[in-house]
């Protein structure tokens, strides 16, 4: 757990430095921005990894550091756009993107649609469900958890759709199916 956390913080720092590339960022600025206990330890290890340099109390990205910062930055933009496209409110999309960018590669975000876009007979894997905690809990209780494969069995225009998952059949109303995002399988 701790290692993942460290990796995440380091990526955040590189991304921040990349965004602020035109400005000189001082170490005290960075420290107050991230406000993190073992900040010094993290900075040291970034220096050792050759991703940043310290010059007169300013933090400067090395070439390698800049490249990594740019990578993370692009992923963030991509994820944030994606989230906004599927209707996640802007500030929430930004916050979520900050989390997701560390875990996901771009090709994972391809072929993701709301369930209603799948045709009869097509299979998708649940990626995320949008909605209040109550709705999500109820769908999870019926087995619609992320990673679960679902197949569209039947659909009536404007009516409910029938899906199969975990060895059983379930009918879902129109109001719900556009909240379920799936990665289409070939």
């Amino acid at each position, binding site marked *: 757990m701790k290692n993942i956390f460290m990796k995440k913080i380091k990526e955040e720092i590189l991304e921040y430095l990349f965004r602020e590339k035109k400005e000189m960022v001082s170490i005290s600025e960075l420290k107050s921005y991230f406000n993190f206990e073992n900040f010094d330890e993290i900075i040291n290890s970034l220096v050792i990894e050759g991703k940043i340099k310290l010059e007169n109390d300013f933090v400067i990205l090395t070439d390698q550091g800049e490249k990594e910062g740019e990578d993370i930055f692009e992923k963030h933009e991509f994820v944030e756009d994606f989230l906004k496209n599927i209707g996640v409110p802007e500030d929430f999309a930004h916050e979520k993107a900050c989390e997701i960018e560390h875990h996901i590669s771009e090709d994972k975000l391809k072929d993701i649609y709301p369930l209603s876009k799948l045709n009869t007979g097509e299979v998708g894997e649940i990626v995320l469900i949008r909605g209040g905690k*109550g709705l999500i*809990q*109820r769908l*999870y*209780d*019926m087995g619609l*958890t992320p990673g679960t494969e679902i197949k569209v069995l039947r659909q009536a225009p404007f009516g409910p759709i029938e899906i199969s998952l*975990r060895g*059983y059949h379930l009918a879902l109303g129109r109001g719900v199916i556009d909240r379920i995002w799936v990665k289409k399988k070939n």
Partner: protein
Amino acid sequence: MGEEKELTIALAGNANVGKSVIFNQLTGSHQIIGNWPGKTIEKREGYLIYKGYKIKVVDLPGIYSFSTYSEEELISRDFIAKEKPDVVINVVDALHLERNLFFTLQLIELEAKLVIALNQIDLLEKSDFTIDSNKLENILNIPIVPTVAIEGKGIEKLIEKCIEIYEGEIKYEPIKIEYGKEVEERVNELIKVVSFDTSYPKRWFNIKLLEGDEKIKKLVRDEKILEIIEKKSKELEEIHGEPISLILTQEKYNLSNKITSEVLIKKEKRVNISDFLDKIFLHPIFGYFTLIISLFLIFYLIFKFGNFVSRYLESFF
């Protein structure tokens, strides 16, 4: 009389799995139908006398979880956790094992003493699957009785098992449901802090506190303890990036998926000759070919064989 031992059994499970059919089989005409106190939901109780036991049977509403988004779920979980029936018969639909096991795991977590009725075995036999019920019994470490409720098959055995559990003749130690280290640590710390008595099982109660279950949280009056709970839930949500109740739901589904994949077996399709021929002759495209080929063969045989026969016959004249 008066010598009879009295015990209470509840029937619990998903909707439409056969609870009421089993209830009727058990209680026959001794039924009382009313409402749950203060609720609009029907309560069905009945009793039976069996080998000197007077057994009260309660038919609970069909539900999928204890997340309490409905009255039925609340009634069921409070009845099981607080009234503590001596045994709960968990009726499981053999055709939809994975979803049903998810509920079984929740009953285990609620520390109900279970006997599983693996019902609708007749329909399972007609399907493409079979269930290794011995293996399932070993994994869950809970007695399992295969039943066909509508035919009364397995019902007596079910009662026998309930009595064995009640009498302590079977050691009841079901599978333990454990979560990741981060969750377990916090549950165990919380158990030490929340020391007041509730009629709910301790571990379950504290898990529900971490999940932020409103009904359960109301039972905690101490502001300090509420703060500790809040803090621990927050930590968990930060680690996982999702509400904790969702994480635990996923974990239980993962477990029921894993168990299902170990005990659900696809039947070997024996190649049945008539099925095979049906497939060839009734196929939308090949059907025509096979028709033409067979007609051709018939004509060919008639002419060849007919020729031979007529020549043979001619030789007599």
